[in-house]
């Protein structure tokens, strides 16, 4: 958030308060410590943007799948076993030469967890939430994404339980690549819509 109080520099009382709250909730039988560990592990190691990258790579490689994804996002990601919390009603929006999509939640932090995992700090921050609906081209330029004037920018503000996933454009020079190799080009930011997918040369540098 804005100001000099950084996300990795909490007030000392915050850490204590979290410990007190967890102890109290455990003592009251409202949460179990092992379940908290499992929730953390799920979103640290199992559910993240690699899920979304698999979905996008298939959409690039398989036109029938892309059509299913654009028609019913939730049903299409379920083909990979991806489903659930913060992605119950998934809508995929496709970037083309004429249209560039970008996703935000101006009111809180809504984000498609089953395909992208948990949102980065900047996505939940005041600068992004305030600016991207008003001046998306400037925000995208700060991410290194400069769009032609003729490209229509579509900003999706996640104000309900619909969750939006951007299908980035398939980069040139990727004909004949396997889905696994294509997935390496699909970044988290390209599925939020602040960036475009990597070229094979860019992916090799990472």
């Amino acid at each position, binding site marked *: *958030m*804005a100001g000099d109080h950084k996300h990795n520099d909490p007030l000392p009382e915050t850490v204590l308060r979290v410990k007190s709250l967890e102890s109290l909730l455990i003592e009251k039988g*409202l949460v*179990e410590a092992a379940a908290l560990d499992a929730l953390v592990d799920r979103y640290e190691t199992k559910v993240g943007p690699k899920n979304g990258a698999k979905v996008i790579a298939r959409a690039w490689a398989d036109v029938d799948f892309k059509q299913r994804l654009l028609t019913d996002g939730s049903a299409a990601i379920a083909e990979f076993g991806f489903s659930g919390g913060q*992605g119950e009603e998934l809508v995929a929006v496709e970037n083309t030469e004429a249209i560039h999509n970008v996703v935000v939640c101006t009111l809180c932090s809504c984000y498609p967890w089953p395909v992208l995992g948990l949102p980065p700090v900047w996505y939940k921050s005041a600068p992004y939430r305030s600016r991207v609906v008003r001046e998306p081209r400037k925000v995208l330029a700060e991410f290194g994404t400069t769009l032609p004037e003729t490209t229509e920018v579509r900003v999706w503000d996640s104000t309900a339980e619909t969750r939006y996933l951007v299908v980035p454009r398939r980069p040139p020079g990727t004909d004949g690549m396997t889905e696994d190799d294509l997935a390496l080009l699909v970044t988290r930011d390209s599925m939020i819509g602040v960036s475009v997918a990597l070229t094979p040369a860019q992916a090799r540098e990472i």
Partner: protein
Amino acid sequence: MDGIHDMGGMHGMGPVEAEENEPVFHADWEKRVFAMNNAISALGVRNIDESRHARERMDPAQYLASSYYEIWLDGLVRILSEKGLISTQELSGVMAPRPVSTPRPALAAPDVDAVMDKGSNYVAPRGKAPSFTAGQTVRARNIHPASHTRLPRYARGHEGIIETDYGLHVFADASAAGRSDPQHLYNVKFTSTELWGPDGHAGDNIYLDLWDDHLEAV
């Protein structure tokens, strides 16, 4: 409520600062806050809209100075206190924890994946008939409820076009007050210049998900 959380269109928040190779969590306390919020959801003691409304009521100066998991912590303590599940005295250790009952038992570790894979349902089988159809021009109502609303300030009073009818859904604004008032949810397209006037960009569009009660016919 016209709160600090309703940030769309505000000036002065500075540049977007992305962190390279950002970890999922930055500290252990963030992990616990994230996990506690999700584990509490399994108890059936508060819905997602009550949860959001609790966060929105954080002191606005603190909200701006806090990281997102600090906002979640503040909201979680607030909603659990309001629901009578915890008290300030218990949290500070002044009073011994007293027993409470919940609609569902605590989430167990072996059930975490199944529960999170299942998610929640926001679609309603019955409710109000739709007032609008795809392609219709509508206006976002100029309303300023002190309670929870998912109609952002920046869209109020502006005209848009119904892009898609998503069908009957639990109405978030009512759900935050413990009611469901099912009605149609629509995706509504607003042009950039309709929302921002000459400061907008002709040809660009902003899409919002809004319910029947947020909209009026033009």
